[in-house]
């Protein structure tokens, strides 16, 4: 069960968005996050929908991938929709039964909230998570936060740790699986019994896992030392990030589109 966890939701393909510089995508991610938070009018949401369709085409995201991205948030969207429908009391009452009343305004507001949330997740995941590998993302973060080195934040070391962590998650997953099976063969139980029993079962996994993790960390430190790793200064990369004219234009175009949506929204209020 642990073996098939995936970190991030990268979808390998060869598209325009996949080959865009990850730093541009990270900036656009932030821009669209803020823009979608700001809009409330249906027409602005419709325009945004158009932009997101464009993003999906540029990222070559197939409907099947899109559906699998949206599946985990369906309960949340439904929950938000229902809560909004029942709590908004303004507008004309369409249906009333004892203390429950549903108004037309409530339904439209709830619909907007739900659609906005779906668009938010589609847009942010096509811009970043579906089209960028986690390793490229940590590269992009390192490059974007480089100015913080002035105030002594160890940006390179943090990004190095993030890359190592990403690399070791599958290894540790296999390890955890192995330990769980070993303990099960000795009679450990994780799935039945009370909450306390389950926790007790997990403790028998956690202790060997910690011991092997610390051992792995020691081995890794020796290996890095043997390869003369000495921090970020003067270190070169196999695939350095290069900002091309196309990346800059993409960044400007999508930022302008986001600004356009926000302007439309504010002019309609």
């Amino acid at each position, binding site marked *: 069960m642990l073996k098939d966890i995936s*970190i991030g939701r990268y979808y390998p393909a060869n598209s325009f968005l996949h080959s865009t510089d990850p730093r541009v995508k990270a900036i656009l991610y932030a821009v669209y996050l803020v823009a979608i938070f700001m809009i409330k009018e249906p027409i602005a949401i419709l325009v945004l929908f158009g932009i997101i369709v464009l993003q999906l085409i540029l990222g070559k995201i197939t409907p099947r991938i899109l559906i699998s991205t949206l599946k985990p948030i369906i309960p949340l969207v439904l929950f938000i929709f229902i809560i909004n429908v029942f709590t908004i009391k303004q507008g004309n009452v369409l249906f009333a039964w004892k203390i429950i009343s549903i108004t037309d305004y409530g339904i439209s507001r709830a619909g907007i909230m739900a659609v906005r949330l779906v668009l938010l997740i589609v847009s942010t995941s096509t811009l970043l998570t579906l089209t960028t590998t986690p390793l490229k993302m940590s590269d992009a973060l390192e490059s974007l936060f480089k100015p913080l080195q002035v105030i002594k934040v160890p940006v390179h070391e943090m990004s190095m740790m993030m890359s190592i962590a990403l690399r070791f998650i599958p290894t540790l997953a296999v390890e955890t699986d192995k330990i769980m099976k070993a303990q099960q063969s000795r009679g450990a139980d994780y799935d039945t019994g009370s909450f306390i029993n389950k926790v007790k079962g997990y403790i028998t996994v956690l202790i060997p896992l910690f011991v092997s993790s610390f051992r792995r960390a020691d081995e890794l430190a020796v290996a890095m030392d043997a390869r003369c790793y000495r921090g970020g200064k003067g270190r070169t990369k196999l695939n350095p990030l290069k900002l091309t004219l196309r990346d800059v234009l993409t960044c400007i175009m999508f930022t302008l589109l986001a600004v356009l949506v926000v302007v439309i929204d504010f002019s309609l209020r």
Partner: protein
Amino acid sequence: MTETHVTVKADSRVARKIMLRRIAACAILTAMAVLLMYLEIPLPFMPSFLKFDFSELPVLIGSFALGPVWGIVIELLKNLIHLPVTQTMGIGELSNFITGVIYVGTAGIIYRIFVSKKGAAIAMIIATLVLAAVSVPVNAFLTLPLYGSVMGFPLEAIIGMSAAVNPLVKDKLSLLLAVFVPFNLFKGFIVAGITYFVHLPLSKLINKTYNATHDPATT
């Protein structure tokens, strides 16, 4: 504490090795924390967004073994890696980071003052109490308003739903005191209890790692 630190004169080679061990231990513990986020145990009678997971454990152990600052670094990296698969648009990660930093930082600092089994227990009890106290302003001024404005999660609805189950809930403040504080206390104590039992057989290893990464001659 056994004095096993290297007696070599503080030179850059030793400093580099210490840095490497810190980076490696921190990275592996982060990987473990992220992994444990997937081993969630849903709590009985709790809403789904208040889930219980073990991911705070490696952070706490890291904070004991490497020092409180590194605990905070693990907490930050853990939430950054979890960000792409977030279901709450990063708000959950933000609040997890803030409360986690407070919990792990407090525990790490106190543990460093009394390095012992008792010290670990005291550190975690105090950290849990601090966490519960701090969760009130964090949720009141940050998490709940953000959920309300970003995801259209009306506060009145949360209060209304909680009031149906818990008669003490009347407004925002009583919601925080009657629902969020007990939840955080409960979560804090469970994590503290597990960490305590995990920490016992590991305490030698933890102190060894601390000594190996904090050579007094270089720091």
